[in-house]
């Protein structure tokens, strides 16, 4: 096993979405030799799915906008749980990150005076989202991809080799972050990052990238849930790699569910149905044809929402003299209502509810106002939304929690040389993310991660000063990756011949468990049940077996990804059980109120056994230990951006006076 191919780099970036590519560009421009490694082809990352835009307070459309307003909006959206320094850096630096994209060839939609146009979005006080129609994510990815190519062209002119200083390893997976050999005396947690263990999906060949700095930019965890808007890549790889390397995860209970994802037909289950369908007059009905949202207006919103269908309908034409219809309640309220209707047996045939515009507007108007939705349903689902209702239900969309990082440097805790940026990093969005803030997050913290990783790597020196991966870890990683091929072998203490588990079946059961028991509305007994089921699945996953060989074998890839999904799912379930309040993307039916005391509490997940060896059977009690941590007080000048009346809703008494 030790004669694996090994390559030396300065910085290894895991993931080639917006954050990963931005990190790689920065690291290379800092002079670090940089490798990017991604599971898909270069340029296919999930970032392409982002539609809305990039939030940046450039003030091109409304000159009243500035970073302070953006910061304020972000904290409100996150219910003040955000790592405030991240939110500050994000709001301050986002405009520069957008403008720099233009110098790399991006073509945003324009204002009449030729600047970048900006659009309104939920939670943003001013028009703020730089966009290109409804394909902003694609523009972002393509621009970064083409910038990488242009850097490679520079290297080609200088060295005669496109990949001299920046190389993309596409269709490769990282299964372990490797660290240095433990000195006999030191604790395992003090070891430094030394590289990554990888395999090529095409050939199944293992290889090791040695590097003093590794940036995790692997995105989210949506594939642990049955209904999700996320792609197959979102198996929580970066989260798991960080955990296994000894770095903690932060606030994993905060998962954003979008209330209206497609549920039917199966091919498009989970894909988003934009909020503007409801904003333009779409209504939610149950199987009895009833507009049920009127039954779900919470007392605190009674004043602000229409009580009758007639009034709600008048709002679309005359919003000043009427109250808005309850279909436009906050996302969690709508999602909860849909959930209740389905559970009461009044759902649509495929487990959602009906979202109808066809009886509300003439077909021509629908096509004009909702062209992308019209085409999405027409082309993907063969459903004509001008003639029939859509079936929708909540869909797992984004994880606010993630690897705990230093706000300024994106460095993870406890593991020198390990960095994280983008959706995989936690803290920036608090308990709930605003639309448009994810793309700007990728750029701002992608760059910071690349910058600091490069500086760290260059400071690590050359030659013998470089950290060397522990060869025992390399061997263990190789054995772990090969296990699915020998899963049918006898178990200890068992007669041989036990059939291996089908990874696809395990994955489906995991998704069902998370969807049903740790989904959008959570209850303590259900989450306890989920933890039991997860423990059972973890034991079975040790025997996930596959046929065939290592060459482009999707069953094998899934068997390996299961480890990550199970670890991350346990984090979500444990943290969700621990936090006995409802806030943002975490809704507890048994603890429905937002508690000011909880605002100061971060929940950190760590592996119980940091030495990293996942025992074949795994301890049945679970692998994750939770720790509470009190957050750093918000800097007074930033608090000063808010009115006192607003702060008292979120902050505890002593924080206000402290």
């Amino acid at each position, binding site marked *: 096993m030790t004669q694996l191919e090994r390559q030396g780099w300065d910085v290894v970036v895991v993931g080639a979405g917006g954050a990963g590519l931005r990190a790689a560009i920065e690291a290379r421009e800092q002079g670090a030799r940089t490798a990017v490694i991604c599971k898909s082809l270069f340029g296919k990352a999930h970032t392409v799915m982002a539609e809305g835009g990039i939030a940046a307070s450039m003030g091109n459309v409304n000159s009243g906008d500035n970073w302070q307003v953006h910061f304020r909006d972000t904290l409100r959206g996150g219910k003040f749980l955000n790592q405030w320094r991240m939110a500050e850096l994000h709001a301050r630096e986002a405009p520069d990150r957008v403008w720099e994209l233009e110098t790399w060839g991006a073509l945003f939609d324009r204002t009449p005076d030729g600047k970048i146009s900006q659009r309104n979005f939920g939670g943003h006080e001013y028009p703020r989202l730089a966009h290109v129609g409804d394909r902003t994510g694609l*523009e972002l990815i393509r621009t970064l991809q083409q910038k990488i190519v242009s850097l490679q062209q520079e290297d080609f002119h200088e060295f005669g080799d496109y990949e001299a200083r920046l190389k993309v390893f596409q269709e490769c997976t990282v299964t372990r972050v490797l660290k240095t050999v433990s000195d006999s005396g030191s604790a395992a947690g003090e070891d430094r990052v030394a590289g990554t263990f990888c395999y090529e999906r095409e050939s199944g060949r293992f290889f090791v990238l040695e590097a003093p700095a590794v940036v995790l930019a692997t995105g989210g965890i949506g594939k642990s849930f049955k209904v999700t808007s996320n792609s197959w890549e979102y198996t929580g790889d970066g989260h798991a790699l960080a955990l296994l390397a000894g770095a903690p995860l932060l606030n994993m209970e905060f998962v954003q569910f979008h209330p209206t994802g497609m549920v039917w037909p199966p091919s498009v289950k989970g*894909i988003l149905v934009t909020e503007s369908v409801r904003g333009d007059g779409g209504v939610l009905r149950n199987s009895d044809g009833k507009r049920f949202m009127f039954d779900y207006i919470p007392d605190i919103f009674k004043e602000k929402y229409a009580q009758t269908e007639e009034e709600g309908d008048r709002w679309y034409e005359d919003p000043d003299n009427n109250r808005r219809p309850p279909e436009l309640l906050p996302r969690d309220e709508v999602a909860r209502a849909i959930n209740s209707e389905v559970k009461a047996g009044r759902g649509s045939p495929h487990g959602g509810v009906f979202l109808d515009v066809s009886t509300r507007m003439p077909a021509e108007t629908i096509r004009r106002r909702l062209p992308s939705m019209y085409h999405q349903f027409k082309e993907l689902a063969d459903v004509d939304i001008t003639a029939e209702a859509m079936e929708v239900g909540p869909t797992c969309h984004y994880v606010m929690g993630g690897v705990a990082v230093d706000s300024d440097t994106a460095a993870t805790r406890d593991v020198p040389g390990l960095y994280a940026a983008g959706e995989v990093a936690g803290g920036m969005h608090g308990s709930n993310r605003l639309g448009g803030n994810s793309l700007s997050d990728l750029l701002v913290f992608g760059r910071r991660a690349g910058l600091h990783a490069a500086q760290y790597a260059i400071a690590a020196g050359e030659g013998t000063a470089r950290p060397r991966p522990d060869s025992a870890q390399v061997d263990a990683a190789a054995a772990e990756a090969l296990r699915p091929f020998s899963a049918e072998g006898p178990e200890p203490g068992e007669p041989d011949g036990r059939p291996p588990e089908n990874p696809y079946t395990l994955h489906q059961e995991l998704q069902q468990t998370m969807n049903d028991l740790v989904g959008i509305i959570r209850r303590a007994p259900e989450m306890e049940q989920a933890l039991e089921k997860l423990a059972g699945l973890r034991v079975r996953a040790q025997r996930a077996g596959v046929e065939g060989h290592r060459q*482009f074998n999707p069953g094998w890839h899934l068997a390996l990804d299961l480890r990550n999904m199970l670890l991350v799912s346990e984090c979500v379930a444990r943290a969700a059980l621990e936090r006995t309040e409802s806030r943002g993307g975490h809704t507890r039916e048994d603890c429905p109120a937002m508690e000011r005391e909880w605002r100061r509490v971060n929940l950190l997940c760590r592996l119980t056994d940091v030495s990293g060896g996942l025992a074949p059977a795994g301890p049945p009690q679970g692998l994750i230990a939770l720790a509470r941590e009190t957050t750093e007080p918000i800097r007074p000048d930033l608090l000063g951006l808010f009115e006192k009346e607003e702060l008292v809703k979120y902050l505890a008494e002593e924080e206000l006076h402290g």
Partner: protein
Amino acid sequence: MSSYTAAFRVWRGDADGGALEDFAVEVNEGEVVLDIIHRLQATQASDLAVRWNCKAGKCGSCSAEINGRPRLLCMTRMSVFSPEETITVTPLRAFPVVRDLVTDVSFNYTKAREVPAFVPPPGVAAGDYRMQQIDVERPQEFRKCIECFLCQDTCHVVRDHEENKAAFAGPRFLMRIAELDMHPLDAAAGAGLDRRKTAQDEHGLGYCNITKCCTEVCPENIKITDNALIPLKERAADRKYDPLVWLGDKIFRRSE
């Protein structure tokens, strides 16, 4: 719900050989071909190799050929076939096969590197870029490209003639040159790079005989031939075959 069993023929094999393999597989209402391939993976052939990602026609990963036509697996609904029909799925036939439905598309990444990047206008700081919407709309159409490489696959210049791959960039990357040449602020000319001339001399624009298959397969409905390739041919003709335009440019030092 209306379910039926469909007859599928899927090419399985690798660079050393392979064959179409027959499957009988369940099909449910509302499914697309990629769903059926996934069902085959989950129930009958766990190691069936297929590339996919977003499953919504936005990433361009799941390119293959269905009944002989280059298509995205996720954007081909089963309802377009009759239940009796045998559906044949093969890998892209213009690129080297890796395994099953997965091909080696590195040709495209090689070609992408050969197109010189956007040249930022000297002296214009980030944040000071000013462009009019009507000027960016043309290149924006080409930036809708999701790089599924179906146009590269269907183009007979390389599909039917392996030997042309060295000289021909393919529709996707000729379109990229057109995009850059139409970019309102690209300063390549000032840096001594004539994109129009090099399109012809270095990227094989002349191989294109505008038979429009690239436009036919484009899942983004980009008018590749009419809006990118033919305008690029005309621009190359300005430089290379039109002495009047050439002379005018020389005399008036026009950059248009």
